[in-house]
């Protein structure tokens, strides 16, 4: 390659990445710095005043009796979501991995909620989960008196988790299915010749071999669960009480319903630190597991 073409190449490269780079700076990095800056301020939109308040917002964060509840709700939601999502995804993938006609049709059906508009999906579930809604009507026919799912403390969180799992479990199912199909058939045959039963084969051969996928999907699912907003807003509005108020929803309430923008920025900082910690943890793990990834 001549010097001139190399120079031309470089210029092309800079031109190609310039818009993305400028966008990242303007819409990601600058706002990120501003989040920290705003968390030290109070901004009143109506009076249009922007005053430095030092660590006031952080003091409020430490004293806010809702914050421990919100963090606990976030933890419950994320943990519940990961456990239910991954177990169901694995179950569906194992079932679809059987030599059976028509598994493609079932794959499409299990995946279909992923492409249904999120709010449309959530509205139907809200409708079905009403006290006099479809689910309780069918339970009634079976002689069961169903609870008011979205309004009772015991069931609201479970309902939100289930609605979210069914919406998105198809993605993890497909990833697990690909991982299962990557397990060498010889291993299964060898185990069967040794007289191992199906459960032992699954536990001793399948699970260890797909463990990198389990790890990966669990991290993607946890990080995704921290961003869940529409489902909470439409299904429960964080209630009853604060039982389903997760961090993003609380942030939205504070900043955009109560117009406490400074405090909203402080909650954003908290959210950022949690996501950052999870991502760094993920990179550490990926490094360790890298020999499994192809």
């Amino acid at each position, binding site marked *: 390659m001549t010097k001139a073409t190399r120079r031309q190449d470089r210029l092309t490269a800079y031109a*190609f990445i310039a818009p993305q780079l400028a966008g*990242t700076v303007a819409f990601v990095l600058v706002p990120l710095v501003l989040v920290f800056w705003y968390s030290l301020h109070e901004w009143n939109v109506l009076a249009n005043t922007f005053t430095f308040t030092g660590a006031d917002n952080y003091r409020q964060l430490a004293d806010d009796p809702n914050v421990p509840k919100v963090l606990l709700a976030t933890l419950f939601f994320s943990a519940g979501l990961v456990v239910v999502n991954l177990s169901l995804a694995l179950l569906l993938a194992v079932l679809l991995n059987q030599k*059976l006609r028509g598994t493609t049709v079932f794959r499409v059906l299990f995946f279909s909620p992923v492409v249904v508009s999120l709010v449309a999906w959530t509205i*139907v579930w809200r409708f079905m989960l009403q006290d006099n809604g479809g689910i309780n009507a069918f339970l009634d026919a079976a002689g069961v008196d169903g609870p008011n799912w979205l309004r009772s403390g015991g069931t609201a969180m479970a309902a939100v988790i289930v609605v979210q799992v069914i919406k998105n479990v198809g993605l993890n199912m497909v990833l697990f299915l690909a991982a299962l199909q990557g397990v060498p058939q010889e291993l299964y045959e060898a185990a069967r010749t040794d007289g191992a039963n199906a459960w032992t084969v699954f536990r001793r051969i399948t699970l260890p071999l797909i463990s990198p996928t389990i790890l990966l999907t669990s991290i993607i699912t946890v990080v995704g669960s921290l961003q869940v907003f529409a489902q909470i807003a439409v299904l429960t509005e964080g209630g009853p009480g604060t039982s389903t108020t997760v961090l993003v929803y609380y942030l939205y309430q504070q*900043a955009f319903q109560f117009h406490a923008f400074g405090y909203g920025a402080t909650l954003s900082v908290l959210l950022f630190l949690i996501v950052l910690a999870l*991502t760094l943890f993920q990179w550490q793990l990926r490094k360790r597991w890298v020999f499994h990834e192809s």
Partner: protein
Amino acid sequence: MSRKGKTFLYGVLLLLCVPFVFPTWWMVTSSLKPNADIFGRSLWPSHVSFAAWHDVFTMQPFARQYFNSAYIAVVVTLGTLVMASMAGYAFARIRFRGQNALFLVVLTGLLIPSEVTIVPLFRIFNSLGLIDTHWPLILVPIFGAPSVLATFIMRQFFITLPAELEEAARMDGLSRAAIFRRIALPLARPALGAVAIFTFLTSWNLYLEPIVYLSSKSMFTLPQALTQFTDPYQGQLWNVQLSAASMTAIPVLIVFVLAQRQFIEGLAHTGLKG
């Protein structure tokens, strides 16, 4: 597998299908029931009524809202494809000074969920007078964090192209830009398809951003409009809501059924890289 085993397996699969398929069925059939007898167990309306489908358009500027969602999603998808394929190509195939450092700068977009930066972005757009316009919903996804995932996916794809292809084109005197446009881009069709599906659905589903930035009904996008069908006492008009939800969900479902392989593989692939 024995015959009995197969029957059992089909039974389990059919049972598991219920929560995945039934909501969509219930959404469409309930939208055809009058609001008075919308609660109950009947799987099919006693008499089919399209009144609620009609109400959707009289209660809100729904056609306008539909158009808003559609055009925003199309513009964001096209913009993202252009940005991500160019940046992804440069990072994958060209050597230049500062490459790794600049790539790290771009990757920070993957690290920072858009929910974290919504407060400062709101203030920025507020001071620019762009509140209650579609600009925040178009600019941020194309230039900000959401397109970084697309760039990353395009880069991963372009890295796999064999070097010989480009060397041959080089011999023929093609410039970098021409190699990108005439050789690399046509080969990248599967990756572009995956990015397009993912980006379109993300924009189509956006909820937090519209409710933060938009306040007038004629500017609303679909997800935001769907929750607004209430009577004057804030009671839910279920059949109208479900009609609007059906109109939002069905077109995408039809495209999905027609191109299910591309959808499933594309979305799973993009999900994994994120």
